């Protein structure tokens, strides 16, 4: 039950990682990016408002900047890196490219994780459900129109693939 804050293990994308020499207050986002070499999750606001750092923790989409890393022991953490381990993109990732849902790209990992999470719970969401699912992810480039088109595209491709 007690962990030494200087050495603890995190389970990220199915692998156990040892975290050493960390400070007790480090966020999961910081540890992922700076200690575990997983820079896919982005850090922008560090106050849970932008969603760029979204990861899946024990089946829930959460802001990794608001998780104290040393308390994330015994949790299953999935980051954007887990989606295409062999370089084969998911339907959602492909749709972002084909529909022009990526401009500067900074918000994209968080949005993709949030949308993958939505589609894992609900394979045919309504427009309102899609808006609700990404209401915690801020994009300052696209105006969201192309992102919604990407989600619709991904849904139809997934249906065609019987997913």
């Amino acid at each position, binding site marked *: *039950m*007690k*962990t*030494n*804050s*200087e050495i*603890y293990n995190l389970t990220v994308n199915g692998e156990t990682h040892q975290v050493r020499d960390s400070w*007790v*207050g480090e*966020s999961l986002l910081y540890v992922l990016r700076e200690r575990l070499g997983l820079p896919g999750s982005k850090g922008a606001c*560090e*106050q*849970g*408002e932008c*969603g760029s750092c*979204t990861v899946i923790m024990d089946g*829930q*989409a*959460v*802001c990794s*900047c*608001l*998780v*104290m890393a*040393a*308390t994330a*022991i*015994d949790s299953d953490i999935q980051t954007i890196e887990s989606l295409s381990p062999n370089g084969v993109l998911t339907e959602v990732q492909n749709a972002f490219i084909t529909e022009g849902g990526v401009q500067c790209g900074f918000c994209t990992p968080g949005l993709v994780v*949030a949308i993958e999470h939505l589609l894992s719970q609900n394979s045919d969401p309504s427009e309102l459900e899609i808006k*609700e*699912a990404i*209401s*915690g*992810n*801020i994009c300052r480039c696209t105006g969201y129109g192309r992102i919604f088109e990407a989600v619709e595209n991904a849904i139809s491709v997934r249906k065609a693939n019987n997913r």
Partner: protein
Amino acid sequence: MSVVVPRTLKDALSATAANPSALIIQGGTDLMVEINFNHRQPTDVIALRLIDELRTFQINQDNKQVTIGAGLPYQTMEHGEIANLLPALAQAARTVGSPQIRATGSIGGNLGTCSPAGDALPVLSALNGTVNLQKADSARSVSIHDFMIGVKRNSRQPGEIIVSTTLPIVTGWQGYAKVGVRNAMVISVASCCLVVDRANGTISVALGAVGPTIVRCRETEAWLATKIDLKTKSTVAPKLLQEFGDRIAEESRPIDDHRSTAAYRRHAVAVLSRRLLTRANAQ
């Protein structure tokens, strides 16, 4: 420096007894912001996130009460049994941050932080909720009105853990409304909870983010009670609406800060309270 992540409440209580000054963290959605911005540098931390006992709720139909675990995430309150019995709480839960925040944020966190902008707190106040606390060797329950003692100050004692809140199931309309700068992801600029209790013939109104703690509008409630007998009459006359909102605004104690101005907040609670009373009338 140590981080303790207990899996049972018993172990958590032993940990707080051994180190009463340790920082207790629930979902982290508030504390981690302070830590990320270096406003707080914790050394010893007790994290409650893996304690299943704090993430449950119990409905007691005999006592007409719902007890909600301090760590139950807000997303659980948006739909289902809690939402059916406590619609104002469901509405407040729905306005908390984003899906990511509602997956981890909890009433225990709102109570621990005790910010007047905490979305659940006006609901607890309007319903006269009870906060249940435990120590290694004792337990106590305290009224929400006595629990909140100032801006980000509560009456939790060192070594105590907030374990749950108990709210009554009342018959009558209830609702929550909030003003923020956009539709999603906002911390409240002003908020209002209104509860009609038909059995007791009362309407209670509580305001968020317009005072050092939640403002319970007892003077307006008493005034309204002289104007209408809610046990026999089902609606409030429209001509009373204007004065109702004016009196609510008068009872608020807002300040100018980085989120808004006192004048706007006073106006907002008048509008929100009238809006909620109009909705109550429509039922």
